[in-house]
């Protein structure tokens, strides 16, 4: 590897539960405060204590926030994974380790080794075993800050902020940081081949995880009922909602303008959301794939009974005993077509926390406007990792759009009411909330056996009228959901690439890289299902179309081909699904290889 400034990957290998998380996060934040973009990723096991955990920080002056792949500096703090961690270091990179014990023999000769006697220093300076453990993390932070040129002031300010109001904690941390820094200054060769140098590439961007952003978005979007069941990686959505509700929604007398229920399971969670939505409150649940599976019966009912519901699905890998702490976009089909009967659901695909916030609020509006379940499709990569993104925005004039609801006044004035009549031709009927009017507007809610006035009917024509109207409603949804975003290449090209969700930063980096190689790509980021017609137009306007996804079976491609009756040969899938976030290296490689193969075929 060659020397570089503000462009490298550092990985911390720790033991889960050792208190390393906050030190590592502080490291990432310090670099951000120096004006240099970073993108950290937690790679953690499904347990609380004892198993290995990694924190990988990509430092990128150019602002590439996708996972790069490869490690330039490994902070190897976990003896259990030491060997494997060392293997991951790029040739010419560094190994940073606790030199209290000597390095095992035979460590690679193509890397540079930096030893700092962390345990020894801790034992020397601290008596309390817990303090020794926690401050060890701060010690290496001090050492690394020296080696990498991270400004001491910045770290010390962050430490003071972190322990605001707890000076008895702040000072020992700052002292430990200084101790580590001083030791490195006196004993280690520095700076390294790569360093952090103050820049101005961060701007006004914020640094937050997508789950917290979605939770806040639900507060802004006016959700009042949240029913959920704990599951990684979605738990922090409900936790964030609760945190922000306590901040913003508690009256002076302690009364709460929200209700949060940790339900007995996901069936109950969605049941409560459906009940609240039926009764006119904005409600949401947060879950992951296994939870969605349990919810499917209710999702079908909500689709047919036309009840607003918002479901935040933070996707992970595979089934319950699968890869709960790994990322994938593998619930596309299970959500789009969740449930039995002819059902279809609206999906929103945010690319980062900024959109997670906005789309969460949008989802609540859409669910009300369309009177149907709406999924906010996050994944572990954007959900549980802090990501640099545009600041949250909220239009001061914006009000919650509650959709077509007849109130007491409307009913009193004699507006005719039939719950499932398509009065406006857009497939969306008017509804009433229970308890609105003494003698008008009541109706009986059930699945499919009904006529347009919500009366019991098993007649075929009534059924058809209803499901055809639902189809019209889904057409209407196309124009209401977030529209796709096109980024054209600098010159006309016949190659188009579709992508969505957390793939975004790696896709951009890959496109830049390929452009530098002379390969121009038009990009379209899909942001919702049902796909607006512009998605079909994009496909048809390009000779060669790639669709990048993080699942095995090209699920979005299936939806796309189905939605527009496309010739499957028109869309080539680029698929990444080992549970790690997709990289630019992978995307660029796959597209490059595919195009080379096509050229060969043509030549042959």
């Amino acid at each position, binding site marked *: 590897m060659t020397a570089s400034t503000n462009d490298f990957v550092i990985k911390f290998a720790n033991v889960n539960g050792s208190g390393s998380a906050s030190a590592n996060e502080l490291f990432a934040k310090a670099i951000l405060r120096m004006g240099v973009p970073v993108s950290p990723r937690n790679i953690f096991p499904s347990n609380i204590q004892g198993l290995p955990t990694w924190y990988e920080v990509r430092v990128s002056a150019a602002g590439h926030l996708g996972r790069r792949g490869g490690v330039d500096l490994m902070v190897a703090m976990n003896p259990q994974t030491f060997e494997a961690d060392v293997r991951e270091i790029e040739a010419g990179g560094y190994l940073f380790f606790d030199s209290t014990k000597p390095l095992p023999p035979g460590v690679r000769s193509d890397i540079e080794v930096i030893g700092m006697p962390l345990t020894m220093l801790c034992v020397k300076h601290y008596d309390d075993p817990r303090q020794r453990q926690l401050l060890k993390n701060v010690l290496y932070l001090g050492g690394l800050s020296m080696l990498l040129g991270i400004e001491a002031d910045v770290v010390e300010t962050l430490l003071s902020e972190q322990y605001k109001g707890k000076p008895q904690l702040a000072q020992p941390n700052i002292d430990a940081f200084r101790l580590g820094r001083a030791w490195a200054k006196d004993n280690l060769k520095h700076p390294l081949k790569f360093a952090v140098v103050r820049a101005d590439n961060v701007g006004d961007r*914020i640094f937050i995880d997508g789950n917290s952003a979605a939770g806040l978005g639900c507060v*802004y979007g006016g959700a009042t009922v949240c*029913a959920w069941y704990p599951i990684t990686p979605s738990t922090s959505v409900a936790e964030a909602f609760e945190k922000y509700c306590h901040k913003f929604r508690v009256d002076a007398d302690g*009364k709460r303008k929200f209700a949060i*229920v940790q339900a007995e399971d996901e069936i109950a969670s969605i049941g*409560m959301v459906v*009940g609240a939505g039926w009764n006119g409150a904005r409600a949401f649940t947060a879950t992951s794939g296994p939870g969605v599976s349990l919810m499917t019966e209710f999702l079908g009912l909500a689709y047919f009974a036309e009840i607003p519901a918002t479901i935040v699905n933070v996707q992970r890998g595979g089934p319950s005993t699968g890869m709960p702490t790994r990322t994938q976009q593998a619930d596309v089909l299970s959500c789009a077509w969740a449930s039995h009967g002819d059902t279809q659901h609206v999906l929103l695909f945010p690319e980062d926390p900024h959109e997670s916030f906005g789309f969460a609020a949008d989802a609540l509006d859409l669910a009300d406007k369309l009177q149907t379940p709406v999924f906010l499709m996050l994944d572990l990569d954007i959900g549980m990792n802090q990501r640099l993104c545009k600041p949250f925005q909220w239009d001061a004039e914006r009000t919650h759009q509650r959709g077509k609801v007849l109130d007491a006044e409307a009913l009193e004035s004699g507006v005719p009411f039939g719950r499932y009549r398509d009065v406006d031709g857009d497939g969306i009927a008017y509804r009433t909330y229970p308890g609105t009017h003494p*003698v008008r507007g009541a*109706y*009986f809610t059930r699945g499919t056996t009904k006529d347009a006035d919500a009366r019991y009917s098993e007649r075929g024509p009534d059924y058809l009228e209803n499901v055809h109207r639902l189809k019209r409603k889904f057409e209407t949804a196309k124009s209401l959901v977030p529209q796709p975003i096109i980024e054209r290449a600098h010159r006309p090209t016949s190659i188009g690439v579709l992508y969505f969700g957390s793939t975004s930063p790696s896709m951009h980096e890959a496109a830049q890289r390929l452009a530098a190689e002379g390969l121009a790509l038009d990009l379209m980021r899909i942001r919702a299902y049902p796909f607006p017609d512009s998605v079909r137009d994009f496909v048809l306007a390009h000779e060669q179309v790639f669709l990048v996804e993080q699942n095995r079976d090209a699920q979005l491609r299936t939806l796309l081909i189905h939605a527009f009756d496309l010739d499957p040969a028109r869309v080539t899938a680029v698929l990444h699904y080992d549970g790690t976030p997709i990289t630019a290296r992978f995307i660029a490689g796959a597209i490059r290889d595919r195009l080379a193969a096509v050229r060969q075929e043509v030549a042959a």
Partner: protein
Amino acid sequence: MTYIAKPKLHHPSLTRNRVGFTRRDYEGKISTLCAGCGHDSISAAIVQACWELDIEPHRVAKLSGIGCSSKTPDYFLGQSHGFNTVHGRMPSVLTGAYLANRDLLYLGVSGDGDSASIGIGQFVHAMRRGVDMTYIVENNGVYGLTKGQFSATADQGSKSKKGVENTDSPVDLVSLALQLGASFVARSFSGDKAQLVPLIKAAMKHRGAAFIDVISPCVAFNNHGGSTKSYDYVREHNDAVNRLDIIEGRAAIEVVQPDDGVIDVEQHDGSVIRLRKLEADYDPRDRLEAMNFIAHHAAKGEVVTGLLFVDADARDFHAHLKTAPTPLNQLDTAALCPGAAALEKVNAGLR
């Protein structure tokens, strides 16, 4: 089939209650259940109870699961919003609805299959939470709608119509509700309107989780000799612990002279449940005694009915959650959205 609207023949002599409605205004569509089905008697009792309580029909939300029993909300309170949800999951939908608007009365109707088998988890947790509702299980010991399979409340040794014996031990929802902390627990019999109507009234006046297990014979599949949920069996083995009256807001509209065996229980809204004890030593304010008493009689093959337990001072789920008095579904953007300026502060804290 299509619906049949009940002819609205408003006979001038139909008495209006204090809120101006006749008994007819509390009725619904014509029932499609089998003639003689116990469930229809329960619907009639609900109609009577709501009319007598002077409840405006639209202030009730009625919810159910799936089953013959769960169909019944279409057959009463036609001017109330109703929701026929999914099998066994009425409690969660009711809970959500109750969270959305604390001002309505919630009436959940379910079956023994719905609540004691597929939905037992939701039954359990709705009781635990103290959702303010009246939860009626129309208990016939079978799955009526799917044609006569045993349900989990069928007694061990009872026989199906085809003569097959049930070997599993039964779930007693009343004992379960008591154990789970329900604050109003009663059992009754669909054939005993004099007992059932006041029980429903008292349950609807109660704040907190009110549960009534109503034995409701299925004439199609479970009303034969070997069944312990048949009309004959229940009539013979019914052992009522008390009879009750509801006295609204302490206004003396009382009909029965109190005697020695009377217990008055004042509910949160000032109404009084007056119990005429039939069992001398039975006090429905003691949860443990209630559990004992029921178990003791069950062992003898007796079905105890009446108000078995009430905690008139119970707090409901909204009280636990400290929810604002204004129903959540009536809060607007100004009340719910922290606004652009607050967001700027959030942003500033994330840099």
